[in-house]
């Protein structure tokens, strides 16, 4: 029994990271109407920037602030220089250009840091485990759950309580209408793209001490993020949260029941959700 409870808590921890990974993809899709295949690469960059910052002797906490900002800036520039030129083109080119960006970033990571992975030390205050009776759990993972929960609230406030947020939500309904109201839609596009990339980078930085870094973690993350967005419903904040937690728990519980098939089961869960609700858990059909 205790094993399953532990796996569920573990799943919540993974799920919160998955949420952070997927929510940016979902918001970008909701507003910009294209699938960002570079999303996994931004996650990858977040993890490697964090690794580099810690290797340079910077504090992990400072890295947690600076890394997402750096990646967001990079994404903002990519949107301005590349994506903005082709919004009016067929959507295969939106996808193709992000696939290109992802390839360039992944290969650049291999060029700079080498093809092999590395580890990132758990930050000092959260080394070790917590014990409540027979329940033992790593401190850092508890911190990740708490931190992502707080960040999720912050993100929710940004989307629901700020002018940018209302422009994003209105833009998801009708971009033309928002443009006619005198809002510079392209600026909102750029900011949302940067925000999405920044959250992916934050997820990467937080995941680095847990799983280490390797050049192909971005690709792996991209697949998972897609599943979560499809399960939760495209463009939905709550959907990303529900989908992330569901997939995290399924993966974690299955990894103690059938380790080789744990990854397969998250896709089976996806197929099951799609059979019952074709537009995802919280998607509007």
């Amino acid at each position: 029994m205790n094993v399953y409870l532990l796996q569920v808590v573990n799943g919540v921890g993974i799920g919160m990271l998955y949420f952070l990974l997927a929510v940016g993809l979902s918001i970008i899709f909701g507003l910009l109407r294209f699938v960002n295949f570079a999303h996994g690469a931004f996650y990858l960059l977040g993890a490697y920037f964090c690794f580099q910052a810690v290797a340079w002797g910077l504090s992990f906490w400072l890295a947690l602030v600076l890394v997402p900002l750096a990646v967001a800036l990079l994404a903002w520039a990519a949107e301005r220089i590349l994506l903005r030129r082709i919004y009016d083109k067929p959507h295969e080119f939106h996808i193709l250009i992000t696939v290109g960006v992802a390839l360039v970033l992944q290969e650049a990571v291999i060029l700079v840091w080498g093809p092999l992975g590395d580890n990132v030390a758990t930050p000092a205050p959260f080394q070790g485990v917590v014990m409540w009776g027979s329940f033992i759990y790593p401190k850092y993972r508890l911190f990740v759950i708490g931190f992502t929960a707080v960040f999720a609230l912050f993100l929710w406030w940004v989307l629901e309580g700020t002018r940018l947020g209302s422009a994003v939500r209105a833009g998801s309904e009708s971009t033309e209408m928002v443009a006619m109201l005198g809002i510079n839609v392209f600026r909102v596009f750029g900011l949302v793209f940067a925000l999405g990339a920044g959250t992916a980078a934050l997820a990467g930085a937080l995941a680095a001490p847990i799983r280490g870094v390797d050049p192909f973690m971005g690709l792996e993350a991209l697949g998972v993020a897609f599943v979560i967005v499809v399960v939760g419903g495209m463009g939905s904040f709550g959907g990303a949260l529900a989908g992330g937690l569901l997939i995290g728990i399924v993966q974690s519980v299955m990894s103690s029941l059938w380790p080789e098939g744990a990854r397969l089961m998250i896709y089976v869960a996806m197929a099951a959700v799609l059979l019952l609700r074709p537009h995802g858990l919280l998607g509007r059909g």
Partner: protein
Amino acid sequence: MPALRDNSGLLLALAVVLLLPLLLQSGTLATEVLVYALAVLGCNLLLGYTGLLSFGQGVFFGMGSYAVGILLTRAGMPLMAAVLLSIVIGAGVAALIGWFAIRQRGTYFVMLTLAFAQMFYFLAYSLPGWTGGDNGLLGIPRPPLSLGGLASVPLDTPWRFYSFVAVVFLLTFWLLHRVTTSVFGRTLLAIRENEARARAVGYDTRLFKLAVFAISGAVTALAGALHAMMTGIAPLSNIEYHTSEMILVMTVIGGTGNLFASLLGAAFYVLAADWLSTLWPRWLLLLGLLLIGVSLFMHKGLWGVGQGLWQWATGRVRAGRPAVREQSL
């Protein structure tokens, strides 16, 4: 000559098939071009003719490889039977994925195909008893081709196998040419241009999309089966994300909506990859830059560039004619 113009793609494909052995030293490389060209034809049928962007073509490719591998090694089937059954399996898997995916449109469809591609990848990974897991399915034989029990053609050397693949390729090219110029093909174009209108006219567009998905799966599985016989293994990488990405990239680089463009895209990618990967192990970086460039500046692919050059050349010839006449007068 309308007949010549109608079949110009077929003639160009025939020319390339005959030229490859003269231009390339390696029969395996030439075979690889045609094998990927088949897979790209399947992708083009979806993207160029129906407007469906599938990121899951690797599934059908990989399923074809595994199917032919299992049928040849375990069941000991004759070559043609194994290949045909692999095609049927590819069509079946495509119909299954298509049934889920075609209910959605646009970007949602893209994500669904990718998610299902990942699902089949992990399925192959989790069943090492069937697929060999991480190592892949090894020791796939290349039995001789028997022609109705009358004669048996050995396919042992790379160039012999190339001849077999070339015949299969041309046959498939011709069949797809027939499909795209048929009423069925024209209906697909109508769906690509305006699905709501096609439905309003009375076509069951979902059925058409499902059918074209199955055809695409069949062609791609055929490519996968030939690839497995070419290399003698069905590796896990054949069903991976990377294969799906590669097939899509070749399709868009070649150009969509024209069958010969698919051969162009596959040839360009395979030969460039072969050349660049020996120069620099990080050549994928260049591919990434190329993709960005194609997306920004080359929307009709290599075929579009070729067409532009042809028009420019022929236009210049026509503009030049009067000048020549004046001089001769």
